[in-house]
């Protein structure tokens, strides 16, 4: 895959377990500085949680990692996102190619208006997969803990499923092509507690095979599933709101023994 992404690959030997090294110096939307000076490493087969108050830019950061923000007019990025040793923002890199290797699950379940089978097969067909598509679809649905519920109705529209099932369908769609990294942008915020629990269990299951970056506004969720946690806060000065990374570390350390006062205030609920 490396040859398709960029020519000059520089293997990152010092941190073989690092899948992504994200240095986000400045992220702009037009003239608005949304995020500044944040450096987040994402380790292999771990769940990296992004937490912080509303408007702290955690979703912006996540969407910058697979260049989804390129779809937003006025988006500008300073820094680098090293993905397996290559800069996702390197010269001549096609965002489309990046997104094929870094999958995404969104806040709102967004299955396509097509059958359950076709939803999961979408990425396989996009990548012109030559093997048995039916097999892969089954595997992906099993991986997303949805197979038993839908195996008898694969031809039914994905939109006919419940919200929680739709979100697991979206996860199945994302993992069908076995991307290196899975970005999850508040994947449970539109789900009820039972569906949330199922998706959380699924995430822990998935990290055996995938590397996951998870944005959540639910701190309990971060403690339940994230191995490492990045806490972002927001700088409100001169009428602007700029998000930045306050603290990064193992989840237990962030929650039990935070180094920064801001982190401590936030996790103990003393943050307005």
């Amino acid at each position, binding site marked *: 895959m490396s040859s398709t992404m960029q020519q000059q690959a520089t293997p990152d030997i010092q941190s073989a377990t690092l899948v992504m090294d994200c240095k986000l110096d400045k992220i702009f939307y037009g003239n608005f500085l949304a995020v500044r000076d944040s450096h987040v490493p994402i380790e292999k087969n771990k769940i990296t949680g992004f937490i912080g108050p509303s408007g702290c830019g955690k979703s912006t950061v996540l969407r910058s990692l697979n260049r989804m923000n390129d*779809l937003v007019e006025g988006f500008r990025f300073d820094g680098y996102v090293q993905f397996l040793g290559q800069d996702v923002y390197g010269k001549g890199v096609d965002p489309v*190619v990046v997104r094929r290797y870094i999958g995404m699950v969104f806040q709102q379940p*967004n299955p396509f*208006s097509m059958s359950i089978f076709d939803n999961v097969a979408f990425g396989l067909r996009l990548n012109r997969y030559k093997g048995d598509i039916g097999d892969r679809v089954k595997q992906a649905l099993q991986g997303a803990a949805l197979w038993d519920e839908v195996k008898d109705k694969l031809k*039914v529209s994905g*939109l*006919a499923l419940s919200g929680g099932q739709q979100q697991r369908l979206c996860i199945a769609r*994302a993992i069908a092509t076995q991307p290196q990294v899975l970005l999850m942008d508040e994947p449970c915020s539109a789900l009820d507690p039972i569906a949330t629990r199922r998706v959380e269990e699924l995430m822990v299951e998935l990290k055996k095979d995938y590397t996951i970056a998870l944005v959540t506004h639910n701190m309990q969720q971060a403690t339940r599933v994230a191995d490492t946690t990045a806490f972002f806060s927001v700088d409100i000065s001169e009428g602007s709101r700029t998000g930045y990374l306050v603290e990064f570390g193992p989840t237990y350390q962030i929650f039990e023994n935070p180094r920064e006062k801001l982190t401590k205030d936030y996790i103990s609920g003393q943050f307005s």
Partner: protein
Amino acid sequence: MTYKIKRDAMEKPFALDVDTDSICQPPSSSTLLIDRTFRMFARLGVFVVLALVVALVLEIGVKAIPGIQKYGLDMLTGTVWDVGQQQFGILPAIWGTLYSSLIALLIGGFFGISMAIFLTQDFLPARLAAVFRTIVELLAAIPSVVYGLWGIFVVIPFIRPLTDVLNESFGWIPFFSSTLSGPGLLPAALVLAIMILPTIAAVSQDALRSVPLKTKQAAYGMGATHWEAILKVMVPTAATGIFGSLVLGLGRALGETMALAMLVGNSNQISLSLFAPANTLAALLALNFPEAGPNEIGVLMYAALVLMVITLMVNILGSMMIMYAQRGVKA
């Protein structure tokens, strides 16, 4: 604060006797009056529209009865229209109506949908797209007779050399088996295509714009290219609405009168040739009514009924196909 059930609570359920200084009050009688009046007018509007449709169908149906009794099914299968001989066959006109409309739909549909994709899928800066959209919509404001004149003075002279070449070289293909000697099916269908284009483009644009942003993001999130996102996700998601635009366009093409009366040639013949003059039901009606005697009125009403049934069937068929496509989808 104390709440007591009013004495007339039996008549008005949940009418509580609230202290006068409470903020919570039932709607005032004038609010209720406005509410009821509005509801009444809305119902009246619906009723009037329905009654108009029924009255129209009945009126035409009743006036068509003498024609139906006298000529029956022979009129639908007859190919000769000769008022002097009292021969009234409308099969060529039915053929011409369907043939010209389908060709117009093919051309107008292709360009209309392409235009809708071009104007909604981030090919143009938003402002420029809005300008283009307005221009396309302006096409709908041009009077039919102007289209007719344009067809006669611009389209026909323009396509004539081309049709001659096609006829000479490919005359063995039925579509090119005659020459264009002025008005004919192709110029009529071409102008008709332009006339139905704004409808198709506008309704398809609405359909494409109503595809949720999250669906678009899902497509790009999977690593789809611009065209993959459009062809594999956006258009299929909007397919029902796009199909609806085609049905609307076809409906308009079937009933279009003035431009066709000027361009189609008004000749009662059934030919596959695109260059042969033809006739349509609407043009037949428009041209024959001014000089129609009592007997012809019945015949023409019969023809009008046939046109109405065709249009109605197209719409019902379209609705059924849309319902079929949407089966099993809740959202």
